[in-house]
């Protein structure tokens, strides 16, 4: 295919993914707004007022970056895993497999779809957050890089999950039993400096910690970890996931018999 044709193919797939997000907006865009509002009301207003400050900030302000990241992570992941798995399940993935569109474009198209939804929800949650707190972003470039990188990474991870999945259960197991716990333990609601030394070093194994911390540095200007390390972690995971996805997709793993 020529560059122009590749571009058309990528545009088509991305547009399709984007319109899917909008078509099923009650499932994709509304729930995050409801859950985050609840978090703000309960943790921020009701409980937060008793906690006082965290990481040198009002508790309400402290949790804003973590909640935005949580929304980005879950939605990027869910979008790609459910969209690609349902293409497998309904077999319309064959439309792409028989076409000359290269595997890399297929992967990229789905990732862009995941990023669109991740960022859309992230922005919506951030807007909701402004109603409850008075956070102003300290470092826009860093915030954007962390948010975008995290969204790309979890879109790739969602794709990986969908490649392996044989049933719809298979795409809900990882988010429920791995992603959610890791996100909670990744410092959405607390600074890891509160943990005893031993548990702090355990917590540092969790990659999500680095993403939330890096983003928090961008938004609030405070962090527990060297930001360069956070960026390295995100880039490394993106590279590993991208290669893994691409190799499996090219081989037609669980796609071609």
């Amino acid at each position, binding site marked *: 295919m*020529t560059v122009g*044709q590749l571009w058309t193919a990528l545009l088509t797939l991305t547009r*399709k993914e984007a319109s899917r997000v909008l078509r099923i907006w009650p499932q994709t865009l509304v729930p995050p707004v409801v859950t985050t509002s609840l978090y703000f009301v309960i943790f921020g207003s009701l409980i937060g007022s008793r906690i006082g400050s965290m990481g040198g900030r009002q508790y309400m302000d402290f949790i804003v970056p973590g909640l935005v990241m949580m929304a980005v992570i879950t939605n990027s992941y869910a979008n790609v895993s459910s969209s690609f798995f349902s293409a497998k399940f*309904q077999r*319309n993935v064959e*439309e792409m497999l*028989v076409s*000359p569109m290269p595997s890399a474009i297929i992967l990229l198209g789905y990732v862009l779809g995941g990023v669109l939804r991740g960022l859309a929800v992230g922005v919506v949650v951030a807007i909701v957050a402004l109603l409850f707190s008075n956070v102003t972003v300290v470092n826009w470039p860093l915030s954007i890089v962390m948010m975008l990188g995290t969204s790309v990474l979890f879109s790739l991870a969602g794709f990986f999950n969908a490649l392996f999945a044989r049933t719809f259960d298979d795409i809900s197991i990882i988010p429920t039993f791995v992603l959610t716990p890791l996100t909670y333990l990744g410092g959405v609601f607390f600074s890891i400096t509160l943990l005893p030394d031993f548990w702090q070093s355990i917590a540092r194994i969790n990659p999500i910690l680095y993403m939330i911390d890096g983003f928090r540095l961008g938004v609030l200007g405070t962090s527990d970890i060297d930001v360069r390390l956070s960026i390295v972690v995100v880039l490394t995971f993106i590279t590993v996931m991208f290669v893994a996805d691409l190799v499996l997709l090219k081989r*037609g793993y669980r796609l071609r*018999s």
Partner: protein
Amino acid sequence: MNKALSIRGLRKTYHNGVEALKGIDLEVDAGDFFALLGPNGAGKSTTIGVVVSLINKTAGSVKVFGVDIDQDFSRAKSLIAVVPQEFNFNMFEKVEQIILNQAGYYGIPRTQARSRCERFLRQLGLWEKRHDVARELSGGMKRRLMIARALVHQPKLLILDEPTAGVDIELRASMWTFLRQINAEGVTIILTTHYLEEAENLCRNIAIINHGELVEHTNMQQLLHRLQHQTVILDLATPQTALPEVTQWQWVLTDPETLEVEVDRTIGLSPVFSTLEHHHIRVLSMRNKSNRLETLFLGLVGSNVKNNNKEEV
């Protein structure tokens, strides 16, 4: 002559150990209307799956208009289109969207895709349904949607896997007309079917596959001729040197005491025997010349009845 498809030594063993293809050699001329006929489970869909890259082959080679799928898969894919046996579109997407997306995957710009989409949807009687969600279409419409989708990138080779299974007679006839027209415009067509009638109506050449092996690879006329005729072998009581002149059937002495007779089924054997009797040639015994094809077809007819009940769409 230029080959649209050339398959050599194709083998496929599935993960579960089923040997679906046991070394297939198949050639289809450019411009042909070709039938791949065989009973259920013969390996038709597997063959097609390999050609269109939905199934990984175990061994062998496949060339599409001279392009080896192992060397330039992308180019080979852009020449082929497939209408699979099972529906494989997103049921929640709109008819028009399904076709435009497919065009996009082939790198066709949106404006060009729109005009082709309109043309094929109109030709296939789906234009009024373009804003409907695929799930809401009838079985026959869904199948026509897959045909429109397959044509949108203007393939040179169109492969249809049992396109009329479960489609009612009226619709089947209009689909046949449409396919003939596409073929007349220069598109090579291969279709699989287990209805001999369908192959007979549409196709010039035919291959018959059974248990993962090609049983026949011939043209339609020859095949029909052979199915229409039966051959019997007669052992004669006395050696003969010459035979009476006949016009209604053909016969030949394979040796002085053995007579091979090929006769149209509608004529039957009675006139043969009366002629022999008239010339005082006595027959000791008679046997059928074994005919694999015939046995297979009896099987095909039998399985058709079953399938008609099963394959409601």
